[in-house]
């Protein structure tokens, strides 16, 4: 029943279902999709030629349609992540023709529409590829490392209750806007998937930048950068060597300047730490 023809690839073309929609509106694409049973399986590309879809479908809707057809034939559907399908939850995570989230700039794959592809185009779909994001099945990966980085320091240490009035500390609009620019990171991990070193600097930089632009976040600025970077290293993400592929694929267009901000805070944290050491333990 399930998955028996995964290895067959070409020559096992499912017949496209007859369509009731006007044919001029329809198009066909030839898909090549990564199938992998579980974390221990080797995985391979499987071809799904001649998949019919409409240009108005989102990329994920096109996969939904393919999945319906696979199941109608008694096969297991392709596992992929999505939830909001509005580009804001960060759940969807497909590499399309080698580019995380596909060809459209500033767009998550759930917001990509088939009108961005040509009729008859070959499309290769793979999961995020990074050591710190192991594949769990087909196109689904484990991004738990991102949560552990945030848990290490990506917050302001306030408890519930007893906070000063929201307007007690004015924040210049420009600063608030910069904080918001960085805070719009959706934690999708495309930056890591795009980076030849699988570095997570854009993601970490986005959080550090968000909080350092607000007075509320400044007290812990150095400690935060240090703790997040240390955890990032421990989780197996690579180093940044300024390829800037991350910025190019980021669906929220987080700029690489956040990495410079991160480096500044990290460096000054390291310096402080060394001064403390030289001082004999910094009041411990």
């Amino acid at each position: 029943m399930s998955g028996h023809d995964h290895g067959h690839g070409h020559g096992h073309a499912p017949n496209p279902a007859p369509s009731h929609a006007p044919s001029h509106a329809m198009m066909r694409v030839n898909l090549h999709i990564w199938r992998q049973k579980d974390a221990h399986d080797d995985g391979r590309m499987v071809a799904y030629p001649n998949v019919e879809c409409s240009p108005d479908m989102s990329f994920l809707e096109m996969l939904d349609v393919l999945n319906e057809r696979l199941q109608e034939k008694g096969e297991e559907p392709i596992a992929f992540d999505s939830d909001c399908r509005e580009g804001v939850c960060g759940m969807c995570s497909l590499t399309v023709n080698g580019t995380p989230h596909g060809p459209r700039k500033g767009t998550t794959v759930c917001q990509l529409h088939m009108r961005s592809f040509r009729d008859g185009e070959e499309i290769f779909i793979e999961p995020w590829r990074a050591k710190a994001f192991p594949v769990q099945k087909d196109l689904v990966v484990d991004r738990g490392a991102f949560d552990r980085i945030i848990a290490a320091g990506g917050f302001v240490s306030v408890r519930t209750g007893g906070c000063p009035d929201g307007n007690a500390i004015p924040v210049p609009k420009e600063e608030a806007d910069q904080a918001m620019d960085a805070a719009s990171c959706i934690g999708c991990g495309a930056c890591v998937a795009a980076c030849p070193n699988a570095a997570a600097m854009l993601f970490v930089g986005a959080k550090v930048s968000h909080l350092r632009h607000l007075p509320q976040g400044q007290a812990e600025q150095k400690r935060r950068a240090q703790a997040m970077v240390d955890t990032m290293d421990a989780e197996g993400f690579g180093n940044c060597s300024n390829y800037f592929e991350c910025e190019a694929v980021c669906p929220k267009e987080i700029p690489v300047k956040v990495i410079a901000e991160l480096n500044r805070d990290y460096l000054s944290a390291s310096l402080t730490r060394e001064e403390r050491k030289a001082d004999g333990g910094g009041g411990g």
Partner: protein
Amino acid sequence: MILDGKCPTGPIETRWERCKAELKLVNPANKRKYKVIVVGTGLAGASAAATLAELGYQVDAFCFQDSPRRAHSIAAQGGINAAKNYQNDGDSVWRLFYDTVKGGDFRARESNVHRLAECSRNIIDQCVAQGVPFAREYGGLLDNRSFGGAQVSRTFYARGQTGQQLLIGAYQALARMIGLRKVTMFPRTEMLDVVVVNGVARGIVVRDLISGKVSTHAADAVVLATGGYGNVFFLSTNAKGCNVTATWRAHKKGAFFANPCYTQIHPTCIPVSGDHQSKLTLMSESLRNDGRIWVPKTKGDARSPDQIPEDERDYYLERRYPSYGNLAPRDISSRSAKYACDEGRGVGPGGLGVYLDFADAIKRLGEATIRERYGNLFDMYERITGENPYQVPMRIYPAVHYTMGGLWVDYHLMSNLPGLFVLGEANFSDHGANRLGASALMQGLADGYFVIPYTIGHFFASTKQEKVTTDHPEFKKAEAEVTARMNRLLSINGKRTVDSFHKELGKLMWDKVGMARDRAGLQETLQKIPAIREEFWKNVFVPGSGEALNQALEKAGRVADFLEFAELLAADALHREESCGGHFRTEYQTEDGEAVRNDQEFCYVGAWEWKGDGKAAELHKEPLKYEFVHLATRSYK
């Protein structure tokens, strides 16, 4: 049974203060002896889990996404209300309370709503302290915008991503507690049942969505913050994963389900483009601050919008509701759009759309200002439709958006099943028959940050409970039932996909139990649902195994629950012989199409008790008293 919401009495302004003063406390050193399970880490669950952990309770938190940061709350766009009166435009706790009771069409509890309005102010302070980057004015102070159903500007926002920023604030507070090992987080874990021991909720059954392993967790109380059930309609603005499973299973274990027929249809969504559609996208209500809604005056006018002169356009909201205009409440705006389309004046494919036009605002304020205010929404619209809304008016149509009904809770947010607390969209408590914009985020955070931390302590301090472990026979039994049901789904091996059933159910619900309902249609629905359900259990195809990541199996379980729940929703809609808020019965309307409420007979919360498979649910009533805002016909004219 007459239900008692255990609301405090006396002056409304001091009820919550007095309640808090009377609550029993758990001494700080004893808190760590109590374990709390929090299911759901959206705004309500994440804020609750973080706060309870800060107080010293042991917390186990669960969500089905791969990270708590991805809960459906993330998608909220427009904003969050708070009675700060920063604009000096006459706002106050009283006014927010009043607007919410009226907006809810007099079907919410006054005590709860007043508490919500009080807490709203603390929420903003809390979020600012966490580093939520709310929009600011040039002077550095917080900015506000207006939302439907209010004549003051009290909505705080972070561009078009308010839910995202509030959730990230709560998620970071939660992450901090996870890092300190005060919360154990179980992502990609779905709750499939509640375990009840001696009449008290003492644990849950869950499935690890990666390994497929089913297991149980025991605690001293269970908090459900699992969101709403809008996806019973298949197409809605909710995230794909939103479901009724957690609350429905709790219902089948004894928790009453209140007002399931109160569903909100949002007026401004992108219209359906074809059969393949997997979900609908909201265009935030905040757009109605600057956008004007219109349709052509004449039926079937096929000219492009820029060819239709001003005097041949019908700005129907401005015409019918001059004092609120384009900011009329959601139920009214949605229904008005439906009427316009029913009359044949709709625009776009199939005539199922109306224009939301920014031309005037762009002329008045300039494109840059509009871009600053709504840029990301305009971009989203363009991505989905391929049209540029700076140049042509948006086309919008109503879509299912939010569910006011939910598990019944008392003033302490505890259901009738002791030990089971319900927060956020999952409960029924604060919005009556219609929720005002920017009030769900406020309610989720009020429940999680400022209500449950007090009331759960009172529950622990005032009830003696023995320790229970997962070795208890009730845990074994519940686990075995969950496994058996899963195996049954996997073994049917039929011919139809899970989605095909979900779409069939959704279409039926939208047609007959959607924006307008009537007796015959509801009766027909009540006949059809059991037939779809029967076919599902005979003919669904769920591939793969239970011992691995299996998304078809996850969906199958959720759709099976929707197929049971839908019947209750329709039955509730049939029983409520009046029109109120999001529940519109065509038999009960005025000549010009306004809703007619029946306070004589229906001024109550309808809470349903599960009586077993194949048996009708039993209705219990909680009478609603209006001591402060007097019952009146809602008018936005």
